[in-house]
């Protein structure tokens, strides 16, 4: 049973200080709602290792192991970026199976696995298509598959539905719930849409603001 624990995480960002203290257990989906520029994306980047915290006391642990000293590629964290960040020079199946490839899985095995996951999201027939011809919804589903297929310890989602229209968002939420059932790792999602919170969250991480020594402190807990 792996649990994500974020303790005393602290980062000084241009005009404010970001702090975080929370815990997400296996099978749970924690949702953070906040306005643009409030530090939501920075929090996910800190957890994933794409940015480093300012405070040595900070701790991010998965299953009791502090991962803060590890580079991003060794943290076993699936990350769905806001703009999907699919690899534009690869086709659908190579994108979906990239995480497996980096873990040394052979081509046939990883293609079989990726085909299985692509079937789950209804994209098996687009496996050889280049990324640029896909629709926004299709890209988003591939981004979900890419982040989950290699069974990461935790999953982070950065406003995954922000570029989609209202109807598509509802369909994508259902798809995400189905995929999360397949791999129920602790999930942290940031959004500015309260409907995401209502539809997906098993817990809400709240953002509170205070001032310390003239500087704004934003705390996620």
């Amino acid at each position, binding site marked *: 049973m792996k649990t994500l624990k974020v303790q005393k995480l602290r980062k000084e960002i241009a005009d404010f200080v970001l702090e975080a203290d929370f815990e997400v257990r296996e099978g749970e989906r924690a949702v953070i709602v906040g306005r643009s520029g409030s530090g939501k994306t920075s929090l996910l980047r800190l957890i994933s*290792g*794409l940015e480093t915290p300012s405070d040595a006391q900070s701790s991010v642990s998965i299953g009791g192991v502090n991962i803060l000293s590890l580079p991003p*590629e060794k943290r076993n964290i699936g990350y769905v970026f806001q703009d999907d960040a699919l*690899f534009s020079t690869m086709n659908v199946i190579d994108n979906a199976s*990239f995480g497996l490839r980096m873990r040394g899985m052979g081509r046939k095995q990883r293609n079989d696995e990726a085909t299985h996951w692509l079937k789950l999201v209804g994209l098996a027939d687009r496996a050889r298509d280049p990324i*640029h011809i896909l*629709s*926004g919804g299709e890209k988003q589903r591939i981004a979900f598959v890419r982040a989950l297929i290699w069974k990461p310890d935790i999953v982070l989602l950065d406003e995954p539905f922000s570029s989609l229209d209202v109807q598509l968002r509802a*369909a994508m939420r259902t798809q995400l719930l189905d995929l999360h059932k397949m791999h129920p790792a602790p999930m942290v999602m940031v959004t500015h849409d309260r409907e995401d919170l209502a539809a997906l969250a098993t817990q809400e991480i709240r953002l509170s603001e205070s001032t310390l020594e003239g500087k704004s402190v934003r705390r996620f807990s």
Partner: protein
Amino acid sequence: MGRTSQPVAKSHRTVGAAAKKYGALTVTFFGTYWVLFIAIPLVALLLNVRFHVGKFFDPSILSLVKVTAAQASWSTALSGVVGLFLGVACSRQRRLQLLLALPFAISSTVVAYTVMAWFGRKGFLPSFFGIQLPWLFSMKAVVLAHVLLNAPWIGFLVAGAMGEVPRREMEAARTLGAKPAQVGLHIVWSHIVEAWASGLVQVFALCVMSFAIVLILGGGPPNETLEVSIYTHIRYGALDLGGAVASALWQLVLTLTPWLLLLFYWNRTGVRQLRRELAPLSLNVSRKFHFWDWIAAGAVALFFIPYLWIFIQTESSKSFTEFLFGENTWAEWVPSFQVSLKLALSSAVITVAVALSGVVSGILFPRLEKWSAVLLSFPGGVSTLVLALGFWLAYSRWVDPFEGSWLAIAILQATVFLPIALRIFRPIASAVQFHRIDAARSLGASPLRAIRWTEFYRWKGPVFAAFGMAAGVSLGELAAVSFFYSEKLIPLPLLMSRWLNRYRFDDARGISILLFLTATALVALSTYSGLKPRERRFA
């Protein structure tokens, strides 16, 4: 399922009847130029082939094909390896990338002279270190000069492509378990390989077309290439039109093949890729110099320090001021300088006018967009002397190489620069702000005034840049000049080549410096002010 990220149709092209009127003018001008000065000369050349079929497989011509292909292959392979290293090393630093762009400014005549100045009998390396280059006048020296000239260009393309690798994709790869080296291999390489490969193809064609370097460093037959052979068959010794036509046809095969490869690639990947290919002049964000940047700076310096040697005066050589103001030299170089400047400015005006008309035609008539790009890039697959020979064959009633033709030289120089002008204009053309034009028109501006106030500031810089670069390149161009010169029409590169043949190395050095300084000043000024147009806010 909604397809929200599909390319959006350009529904904003609402400039309407006025656009069609101006568009018809630009299409007519561009089409007429292309037909008159590119299509008809090439057709005339091809029609002439039937009179010289036997020459086509003449062993002497076939041996030239072999030498040309071998020389170009070696030059391309070495430039490719070195250029890839330079590009990757310089990708972090905008200032270094600007340096890599400088070969635009350096005439091939100056490059050839520089190799001689380093390795010649009284050159830097023999004088100071006793290092002799036993193969100074051979194909090896030609390859060395080509690498010196072309490796920074490939580096420039690679560095530009490195700057366009999406940071998000690299981060995504890291979160999926890729180590930094794997990110380089799977993500970065897949983004830069196209720019690198297209650079190789271009460099191959350029090396096949190389004239001044082969003429000066090749050492003469048997180290002659097809391009030099066209010249020698027409203007050196007895006139042999058959030999020239056969050489030109083989030359066309060698230079058009890479161009067709690029075209096939563009066609396969669509206009989207063509736009990316044509936009390598975007420069990366500058950062503070770190250790590896200094190493990169050292590597780049290796490609520019050699040129500085031409500025250094040894005990036995004449000073630059002595050259400039010497009684004999002044009377010789000033008229040539005037001819060169006049030619350079005329070529630049023609280049900008033709390239702009082609690009604007593509904007106003979207169906012509791809065709205008293909037609503008076409001269990249035809060498100057092939076009010159065709020009003569087509218009021999009016143009005679033995009497000289200022207009023919200017048109040829302008035509061969069109692909570079396309590179400069295309990124600007693909981002025309139609909604701003519409907004200005809805506020009462006429079509022309709307364009003046919304688009002019975007185009001003690139137009000056193209003008400066075209002028800089034609200043040192030797091929067209050698074909259509007369005793009253001797530009600087030709004068320099003559002085080298007469062992007037000090005076040739003076011309090298003059060409280097004038062309560098033209290109540096225009590149700096032109390629980074500041977005003026539309109030």
